[in-house]
């Protein structure tokens, strides 16, 4: 009898839904949920949110991290006024905008073209895909360093190739004020075009073949197929690639520092490079916190607008 009672109890327990069983032990679904997400939330708060808030607080002070005994004064918007009134800062932002816009333009143009070619699946296309993606596997600092050798006026291969076609003499890509901004665009394009290409390739391969077949039956020319089928269907992928590259290039640092150190003069001094100099070389902590806040708001705002636009494109 006792045995059968126990068996009945056991079978009843077995039929209790998992959630109810948890509740029976004192932990609600919500509690379990919290148990799992709390460590992540705490980590997020400690690593991302707190430094962000702290950075914003510091931006209203005259704090300098290298002067421990110095009185920290609340100076209101003075750092922001100084930053926004500085011609130099606008210059760094212009240099950054030039770099971001042109490098993305070339990466999209070349990346999409390469993806379009590779999508034709010619003989050996897998091999060429692997070769093309090699640059993005390298470290940006390494890329910056070895391109300085390639651009070396006396012994670099870049000058040799240019001089093979036109007599340009001993010109210096890195040392010339007019050429240096294009130097960083060239190297970044060389390194990150494969990334854009891969995303575009994924987009191209996601287009069902039957759409092209239907278009052909309707008598659409290849040119019309390209503009009415290929481009609209790849566009969301392409926009995603642009978003990733824009965010990455906006904070570009290592490759450009190795390549040009921000020079000649300040012609390649990106906002991120100047921010690092102000924060960790000049030790103007409050001032650089204000600069970082301005950059953060700019990128965050632009990215939000862009993502909304991207979602609209996807819905079409």
């Amino acid at each position, binding site marked *: 009898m006792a045995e059968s009672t126990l068996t009945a109890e056991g079978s009843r327990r077995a039929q209790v839904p998992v959630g109810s069983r948890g509740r029976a032990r004192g932990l609600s679904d919500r509690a379990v949920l919290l148990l799992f997400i709390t460590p992540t939330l705490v980590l997020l708060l400690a690593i991302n949110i707190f430094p962000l808030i702290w950075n914003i607080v510091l931006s209203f002070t005259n704090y300098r991290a290298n*002067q421990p005994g110095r009185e920290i004064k609340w100076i209101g918007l003075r750092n922001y006024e100084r930053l926004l009134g500085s011609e130099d800062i606008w210059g760094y932002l212009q240099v950054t905008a030039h770099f971001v816009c042109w490098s993305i333009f070339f990466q999209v143009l070349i990346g999409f073209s390469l993806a379009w070619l590779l999508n034709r699946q010619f003989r050996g296309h897998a091999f060429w895909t692997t070769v093309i993606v090699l640059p993005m596997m390298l470290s940006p600092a390494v890329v910056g360093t070895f391109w300085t050798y390639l651009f070396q006026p006396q012994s670099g291969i870049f000058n040799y190739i240019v001089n093979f076609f036109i007599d340009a003499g001993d010109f210096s890509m*890195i040392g010339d004020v007019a050429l240096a901004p294009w130097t960083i665009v060239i190297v970044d394009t060389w390194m990150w075009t494969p990334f854009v290409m891969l995303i575009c390739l994924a987009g191209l391969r996601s287009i069902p073949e039957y759409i092209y077949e239907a278009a052909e039956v309707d008598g659409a020319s290849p040119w019309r197929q390209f503009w009415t089928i290929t481009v609209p269907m790849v566009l969301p992928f392409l926009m995603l690639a642009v978003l990733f590259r824009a965010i990455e290039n906006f904070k570009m640092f290592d490759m450009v520092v190795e390549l040009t150190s921000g020079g000649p003069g*300040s012609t390649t001094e990106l906002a991120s490079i100047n921010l690092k100099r102000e924060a960790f070389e000049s030790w103007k902590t409050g001032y650089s916190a204000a600069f970082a806040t301005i950059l953060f708001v700019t990128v965050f705002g632009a990215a939000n607008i862009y993502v909304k636009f991207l979602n609209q494109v996807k819905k079409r």
Partner: protein
Amino acid sequence: MFRKATILSAAATLAALVQPAAAQEGELTLCWAAWDPANALQELSKDFTEQTGIEMNFEFVPWTNFADRFLNELNSGGQLCDLMIGDSQWLGGSATYGHYVQLNDFFDERGISMDDFLPATVYAYSTWPKGEPQYWALPAMGDALGWVYRRDWFERPELQEAFAAEYGYDLGVPENWNQLMDIGRFFQGREIDGVTVYGMAIYSERGSEGITMGVTSAMYPWGMQYDNPDQPYDMEGYLNSPEAVEALEFYKELYECCTPPGHSDAYMVANLDAYRSGQVAMQMNWFAFFPGILKDDNVGGDVSGFFVNPSQNVEASVLGGQGISVVSYSDNIDQALEYIEWFAQPDVQQQWWELGGYSCHRAVLEDPSFPDSQPFAGDFLVAMSQVQDFWQEPTYAELLQAMQKRVHDYVVADEGTAQEALDQLLEDWTYTFEDDGKL
């Protein structure tokens, strides 16, 4: 067999017991830049370990990251370094913010006299506030900016003849900056032994301190002063004086006329590479590199000659070099002080010079045989007698960054005029000093 093993074991135990207290004495970490003198110091320090049993570790960082890395270490109260051979410009900040241990009491207690060291080096490497008898470092590595030239090219009859015909005087060590430029122009683009060579390698680096050291090597001889000697921090008419403007314009012209193509971001190593590879007839660089040049396979021995920074209106050289300090955050302050005491001894200083370091000790420098001990030793003495240094203020890093930007923008990027560059620099520095409560 067993007996043999027992004897060996007993011998080993006995040896361990009678060993000098090496392992128990602990160890020290000395932080400096990664360059030839650092290797010499590492070699020299073996003697210290032998005498005291204190093991020495070394943390050497390339010059390009030297200030970044170790100023961060000091500012964060790091305990990596027990001893720091830091740049002279760090002294103000390190003394003010308590990074270094003040050494006055220790020097008094151990009978170390600053009178035993060259006054210019004590002033530059040890004192803060400047010139006050408050010592934060022992002069460790004397250094100044000097010049190296291709003696073998200068002595070629056909080149001497061509130079004399073009400039009307003999090709030789330049006596002033005008002659330096003449020589630079003469060699620029000239073919020597079938290779195109260039005039000179000068400093143009943007990232750390390169171009500031370069332009001040011209501005000091022109007579530029940072501020009014009677009214500190009053810079108007001093920093941007007509002499300073002229010197800056001259340096830009030198950069444009006489350097190899692409020499737009060059500091010590880039100049050394340009010179060693036979690209240039002359290079500016720190005396610290000269022993290495003398031993070089391509340009060593009689191939190279050396000269002091040329004068113009006055005689002046840019100060390099460093003092050795005890880091206040160290757990091994006593042992670190012991190292300083050992290093201050005249015989150790003599050995330091022989190994390739530049001693600042008068017993070494004032020895009658010193000027002939190396081909550049005499020039070193002259240079050290006329050195001038950049600001050593606690805000030196900010002052340096501002100057790097303004002069690089003008000299290399060809933006604005020399007058505008120095006026803007004056504005930057005024803001810094106001913010620091000095103005």
